[in-house]
């Protein structure tokens, strides 16, 4: 019994001389508090546009607005159906002036990135005109191939759909790829009449989906 009492007394003495909490200590020259860090990791996806850099091609500047909408802007300047005006873009003159269309076109870059996606076997990158020009003589076109190959003629372009999303990339895994170069243009029809030469704006929505 005496031995037990002495043991308890010794234990009490030990407790009295040790620290009271993890942030403070007495009769000591060291203390070690802890910090618990909590985090929730979410999947994320990013698609950014850049000004093109293809050699021998006109580069209309892609400008990030910093605003929620539109995210980027590009200005083709003054265009005409005879491909007379010179702008930032390259141009294809009409095959038959006054009959067939002219196309002003430029390259641009798409940078798709994503992380913490559980499945990466199927991705899609599309473009769709979600707000069209108000004039009947201009429309937006894209390089039909969607491979980065530089268009050689008017026939290498096709209209960007206003009704559905057009695929513009066919690579298996888009993440981490170097910027994808694509081409976009303004098709100008040889029409005449009132109200066909006003300043107009259209919006293209690019969509990256990772499944």
């Amino acid at each position: 019994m005496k031995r037990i009492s002495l043991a308890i007394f010794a234990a009490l003495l030990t407790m009295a001389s040790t620290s009271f909490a993890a942030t403070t200590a007495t009769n000591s020259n060291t203390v070690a508090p802890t910090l618990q860090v909590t985090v929730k990791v979410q999947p994320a996806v990013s698609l950014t546009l850049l000004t093109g850099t293809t050699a021998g091609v006109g580069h209309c500047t892609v400008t990030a607005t910093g605003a929620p909408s539109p995210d980027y802007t590009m200005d083709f300047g003054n265009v005409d159906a005879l491909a007379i005006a010179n702008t930032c873009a390259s141009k294809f003159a009409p095959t038959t002036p006054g009959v067939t269309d002219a196309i002003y076109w430029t390259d641009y870059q798409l940078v798709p990135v994503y992380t913490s996606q559980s499945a990466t076997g199927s991705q899609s990158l599309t473009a769709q005109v979600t707000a069209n020009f108000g004039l009947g003589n201009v429309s937006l076109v894209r390089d039909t191939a969607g491979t980065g190959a530089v268009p050689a003629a008017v026939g290498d372009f096709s209209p960007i759909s206003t009704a559905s999303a057009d695929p513009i990339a066919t690579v298996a895994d888009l993440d981490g790829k170097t910027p994808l170069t694509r081409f976009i243009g303004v098709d100008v029809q040889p029409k005449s009449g009132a109200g066909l030469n006003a300043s107009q704006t259209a919006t293209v929505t690019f969509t990256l989906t990772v499944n």
Partner: protein
Amino acid sequence: MRTNTLHEVETNTPGAAQRSAGRGFSYAKRFLQPVFLFVSLLISLQCFARGGTFLQLATAPGGVTITAAGGGYRTSFGTMNGLAVGTPGAGLTATDLGNGALYFSEVRMTVNTILGQGYVTASFSTPFQHPAALAAWICPSNSSCNVAANYSALSTSGGVTNIVPPPGVNSGTTVTIGIAIFVPDNDGASAVTGNDNGGTITFTVVNAGLPIESDTLKLATSPNKIQSAVELTLDSDPSGLTINPATDYSVDYGNVNGLGIGAGAGLTAIAQAGGAIYSTPYRIKPAFSDLRSTTGTITVCTQTAFAHSAILNMQDASASAGPFTAIPNCGARVQITNTASDRSTITRYLGLFISKVNGPGTSFASDSAVLTYTITVP
């Protein structure tokens, strides 16, 4: 009638000048006699008043125990340190004043007088054994003595402080005063640890302008003990995440991703090779007292890594933009500073690195890690 006749005969016998002088002496005698008697009484009482006649000290409700002993009073403050950490002695409250700790308690004081009101002064009559390590403070009766702000130091050079201020109180009045010991931060050569036999406060009752009794209160029934103390706290930076003071501290980075997109309030996302770092400023506050060095070393290590340690790890930097250093598992450590001074504030940046990876299990609802910060003052 006879008396009057005789009086007239006796007083009418001398000349006019003598008669006038005789009347003046008679009036002075008549009025000064009580004053002489009162002064004589005060002097007699002062000579013969025993401790406790005109002033009594007693334990206040919930306060430190006051005992009468040897014609005076005693109390005990027990074990103290400069940071007010740990549990103070029974009946005492310990408050960290930023440059030391104040251990204080209310005390009941009953004042008696001979004539009218009396007031009480206090002086520090016997210093502590370690005057640089301990100082006596008091709180006057016209203040709330349950808060540290109303206490002030007693002069150590013979000055007196009114603890029951003039004009004083009526006889038999019981007031509440406060007594305290201040333990300043002392590090380096001035560090003191060990026992101190306590100093003595002398209280003097002043009545009708004269001291009528002095009583002593020794601030140590048994020796008080000065101990060393060390503290390390973490705190939020106004522009950073909130550091919650919970077992011991916690911080929530919220939703993050390997692209550094959409950094929440208090976070800055910094692009890194292979992922992103979410950085937040925070504050490290060391404090220590009665240790031999004036500077300490602070380190940090990962006590418990993230479950997804291949994707997440914590990093440390001295600047928002880095460079960041990965905080290793404990066993190894990142040194934050080896010149941490007492009561200093160190702003540091805690980075959460997240890898940009895809595949099953690369996003999850929650993960956590535990960091251990250690301060050692040699």
